């Protein structure tokens, strides 16, 4: 795959092997059937434990006692990149499980919560989901209406979450809601087992993007959870936002993977497809498209690698991640369209990946903070003035 300035040559052996094993898995286990899943709107659920066995969920977190490996941030990024070269739906599954469910339990959970959930989630024996977005509150989650009311040593939860990746197949949901029994109603995180009374997880059908991924709602109607299910280590929007920083880091890498797969598909097609007596790759217009695509991918890739370095040494700010998520996803979204275009009529079928990537990227452009919202995050960081509220 395209690595124009040989960034992969500087990987260490463990990182290269992680890339290789992920690439092989995607080649053999994902690519052959993903078009069919996409068309049928199904997620290949049999891959969940397989990816767990391979260690694809949150391998960057530390903790031998919880079956965690603590691989480098670059290795984690490479893994997300390879998975998304297969399909963003597969990468989303791993992102949610690792960065949005295991990460908050690891960072803010009690020892009991960690012991109960981390090993099972790591092995893919349990599936998690992350409930932040609500029907009336997307880009502004701090206005959330989900409430938790203390009742003795329990909490009673009410509210509804929507657009929740994996909710219909999840065993546990990390639900963010306001604790109305505490002063200032702080946002708290709750581990809600989906088989509790009052929990519903309806599936959202008719998506035209991210079709090989299960998305649903979480309905909470007088759901009682014990106090021990509250994440003890965090209060306020910092909780969900810190998870999103982790996931977006993976997305910045994932987008490069999707774009690389588009590029390779287009390059191959352009050299194979003959028109006017020769391969279409001999036309300057097609070469220009490839040259531009390769350049855009390479600059996005550089940003991803730099992000990993900053994250590794603890200097990564959420705004850095905003810039990379914003840039790399836009890049992939634009380039996927160009790749699609180079494939002519064949490009609009599920036989080729670019249009599937292209429509997946519509979701990626919107979730985990829309492109616009990241623009405003950067604007605020650069000027000191927040432009979110009119």
């Amino acid at each position, binding site marked *: 795959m395209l690595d124009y300035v040989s960034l992969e040559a500087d990987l260490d052996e463990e990182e290269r092997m992680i890339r290789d*094993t992920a690439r092989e898995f995607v080649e053999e286990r994902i690519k052959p059937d993903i078009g069919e899943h996409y068309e049928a709107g199904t997620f290949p659920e049999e891959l969940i434990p397989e990816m767990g066995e*391979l260690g694809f969920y949150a391998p960057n977190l530390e903790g031998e006692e919880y079956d965690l490996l603590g691989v480098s941030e670059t290795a984690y990024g490479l893994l997300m990149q390879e998975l998304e070269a297969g399909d963003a739906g597969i990468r989303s599954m791993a992102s949610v499980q690792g960065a949005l469910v295991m990460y908050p339990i690891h960072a803010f959970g009690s020892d009991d919560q960690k012991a109960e959930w981390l090993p099972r989630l790591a092995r893919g024996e349990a599936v998690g989901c992350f409930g932040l977005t609500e029907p009336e509150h997307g880009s502004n989650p701090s206005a959330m209406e989900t409430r938790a009311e203390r009742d003795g040593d329990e909490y009673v939860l009410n509210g509804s979450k929507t657009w929740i990746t994996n909710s219909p197949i999840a065993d546990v949901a990390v639900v963010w809601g306001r604790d109305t029994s505490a002063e200032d109603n702080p946002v708290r995180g709750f581990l809600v087992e989906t088989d509790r009374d009052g929990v519903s997880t309806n599936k959202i059908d008719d998506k035209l993007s991210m079709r090989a991924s299960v998305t649903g709602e979480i309905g909470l109607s007088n759901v009682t959870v014990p106090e021990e299910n509250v994440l003890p280590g965090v209060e306020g929007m910092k909780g969900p936002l810190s998870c999103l920083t982790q996931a977006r880091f993976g997305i910045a890498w994932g987008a490069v993977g999707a774009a690389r797969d588009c590029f390779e598909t287009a390059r191959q097609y352009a050299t194979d497809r003959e028109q006017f007596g020769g391969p279409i790759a001999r036309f300057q217009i097609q070469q220009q498209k490839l040259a531009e695509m390769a350049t855009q991918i390479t600059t996005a890739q550089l940003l991803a690698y730099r992000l990993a370095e900053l994250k590794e040494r603890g200097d990564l700010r959420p705004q850095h991640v905003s810039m990379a998520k914003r840039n790399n996803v836009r890049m992939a979204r634009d380039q996927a369209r160009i790749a699609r275009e180079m494939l002519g009529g064949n490009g609009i079928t599920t036989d080729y990946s670019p249009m599937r990537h292209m429509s997946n990227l519509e979701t990626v452009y919107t979730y985990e903070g829309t492109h616009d919202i990241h623009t405003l995050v950067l604007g605020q960081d650069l000027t000191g003035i927040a432009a979110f509220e009119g």
Partner: protein
Amino acid sequence: MKVLVTVKEVAEVEDDFEIDGTGVDDRYLEYDLNEWDDYAVEEAVQLQEAGDDIEVVSVTIGPERAEETIRMALAKGVDRAIRVWDDALDQDLLDTATKARVFRAVVEEEEPDLILTGVQAGDDAFGATGVALAESVGQEWAAVVNQLDIDHLLAENVARVHRELEGGVEELTDVELPAVLTIQTGINEPRYASLRGIRQAQSKEIAPKTLADLGLEAGDVESSLFLTEMYEPESESDATLFEGSAEETAAELASVLREKGVGAE
């Protein structure tokens, strides 16, 4: 019990390539574990997982570059690796007898109970190393094994194997250990290296050995086979396109086939 698996890093040639001297130009080569060896490794690791106290050791004849490929086998569960290399081995082509001599020296040192090799290597495709090694160490052997009864082997110290013969015939053979089995693709489903395995592999041993370490000298590895030339055969394409209705074209095809002597009278 000790299982020795021979593994080889092979060069895979890209679709478009250029020839350089008696080889394919390095720019068009990608190195990977020989496909058959991947199955041999998996079989050894399954044996190790099924039994108690079974050590799986891999041995490679290859330059330092091969270490990453060897490391992948370690990540899949091989316990330790031996890599034999020497300037004297850096030849265009190592013939089977030479390889068998080198492996014999390793076998004498390691004294494995079972040796697994791939049926053949994807690059030079001699398909003879395993059998030549068995001959050279004086052990029983079974070639092209596509099924191994692991429970039976652990209980009886006998390899009960299925072998694939021509025309879909299967042969069931019992081979007493120590023995050499050459492993066919499809015998199992090779695993992917897990991230945990990759992590563990970083601290597993790949012991480098020279010919001298094995009590051999340059004269022992003088190959009697030489590559004299490498060229791309000219492909002659002689295509005839029949046009017309199905009946007409079928009749034309039939007469051509008859002319060429294909089919019954």
